[in-house]
């Protein structure tokens, strides 16, 4: 009972935090995605033609949603948890009786909530540019939730190790952005040479984007079950790492 109340408290606090600053948290992905649709979808996309049997706007839509979800889930947790470390109000939680898994789960649910909210907003934007139809709703929702949770945990681990605000922007800029752009958001890996196609299989975001695309459009460059298994495995692995770090007090206890 106590842990449930503590968890609810963190989730409410996290949701209020990103809703309170909505121009910084909810609006930018809407603006950026609109630009992607206008420039890549309409202007350039009309010259690219069809991809995997779909119009270009339709093809890139799942990837754009997933990109927004990944970025926002990650940045929500990394910035919120690091800010708590920086202002030292993390001590409010550390001195309380709640176990470490509640702290982690609270932040992850907060990250997932922002990821989903942004995902829904991007889908609403997409409706202005393409017809939205969902081929496999359960797969769509499952992939969306697992991916948002995975990147929330990843953001949490980043924040644990971060010693300055610079440290929380390094991973999104130099790791997350390249992997996302090269993760099949804008193209099918079938257009790549065999060598680069093989390299692409090492990019975990490819599985998430394609899994989500399968849920929405019913097409994917990869099998859906291995994709879901990989996301689940990574989520469990990183959650274990995050909990271990919390238990050891890495970056938060002296």
């Amino acid at each position, binding site marked *: 009972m106590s842990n449930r109340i503590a968890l609810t408290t963190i989730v409410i606090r996290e949701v209020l935090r990103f809703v309170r600053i909505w121009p910084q948290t909810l609006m930018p992905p809407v603006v950026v995605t609109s630009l992607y649709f206008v420039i890549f979808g309409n202007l350039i996309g009309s010259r690219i033609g069809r991809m995997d049997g779909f119009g270009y706007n339709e093809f890139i839509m799942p990837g754009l949603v997933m990109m927004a979800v990944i970025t926002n889930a990650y940045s929500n947790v990394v910035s919120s948890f690091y800010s708590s470390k920086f*202002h030292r*109000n993390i001590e409010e939680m550390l*001195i309380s009786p709640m176990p470490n898994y509640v702290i982690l789960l609270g932040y992850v649910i907060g990250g997932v909530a922002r990821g989903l909210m942004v995902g829904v907003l991007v889908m609403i934007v997409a409706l202005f540019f393409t017809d939205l139809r969902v081929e496999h709703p359960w797969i769509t929702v499952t992939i969306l939730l697992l991916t948002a949770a995975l990147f929330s945990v990843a953001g949490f681990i980043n924040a644990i190790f971060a010693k300055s605000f610079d440290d929380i922007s390094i991973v999104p800029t130099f790791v997350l952005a390249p992997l996302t752009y090269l993760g099949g958001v804008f193209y099918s890996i079938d257009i790549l040479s065999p060598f680069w196609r093989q390299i692409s299989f090492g990019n975990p975001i490819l599985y998430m984007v394609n899994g989500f695309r399968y849920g929405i459009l019913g097409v994917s460059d990869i099998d859906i079950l291995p994709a879901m298994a990989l996301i689940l495995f990574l989520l469990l692995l990183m959650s274990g790492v995050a909990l271990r770090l919390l238990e050891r007090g890495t970056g938060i206890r002296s």
Partner: protein
Amino acid sequence: MTTALSIRNLQKTYANGFQALKGIDLEVEQGEFVALLGPNGAGKSTTIGIINSLVTKTAGQVEVFGFDLERQRAQAKACLGLVPQEFNFNIFEPVEEIVVNQAGYYGVPRREAFERAGAVLEQLGLLDKRRATPRELSGGMKRRLMIARALVHRPQLLILDEPTAGVDIEIRRSMWEFLTRINREGTTVILTTHYLEEAEALCEKVAFINHGRIVERGLVRDLIDKLEVETFVLNTRQPLREPPPLGGEYPTRLIDAHTLEVAISRAHSVNTLFERLSSLGIQVSSMRNKANRLEELFLRLMDGSRNE
């Protein structure tokens, strides 16, 4: 009597090799008001950090109301409330939310948390600031907010790390009154402070800590009784040119023409001193302790441990 806090052989060595605690033993009984005194870097905040799970101990054992901090962590932590030395708020969060969230972390249901937050903010004179953010509060208000936050889950043991540092006399006095009241109502209180008169005014027990060890502890009145020599400052009506010849048992120093400093050991009385001053035709208009008595003891203890 229930033991509120039991610390045995507490040790802490930081990653850089600095040994902050070299084996602290401390017992605090339920209902007591205890001060932990010592110079900067003595180990007070490290001790408090370990009790509150903010610092990882190297060795030793901590029990809070009989709950082992390692094995019965949740139960032990539920008994504790902490007012840290430095402000540690989310500066963008409104005052009321800070207090309500803290209650939530301790498992207080949200509706009850709002009721409790309202009550505790009112007690500390912050109710009209409940929609403000900490950035809009004065230093004294922030201190009071930290106390409100620490009390909202109704801890049995409240630990305050220099709670009155940097606040004006009026606020300090009102905080003293508040802490005395909650102690009388049953909350055990431990505080660290650099204001020795604060410890003497509030606490029945003190423990002096230096170089990571407790060098003295006990009831305030017993410790003060241990003072071998007290130094008094006397203001004279007549101007003096040199220290009056009071004898070797009353070491005297002339501060200025109207101010004398006299050290009186326990073996000699103040009455005799006044008799001698009268016989020399010197009239005293006022007299006071040169330092707070606890401060005098503190300085001697610190000198002693430096010379060890």
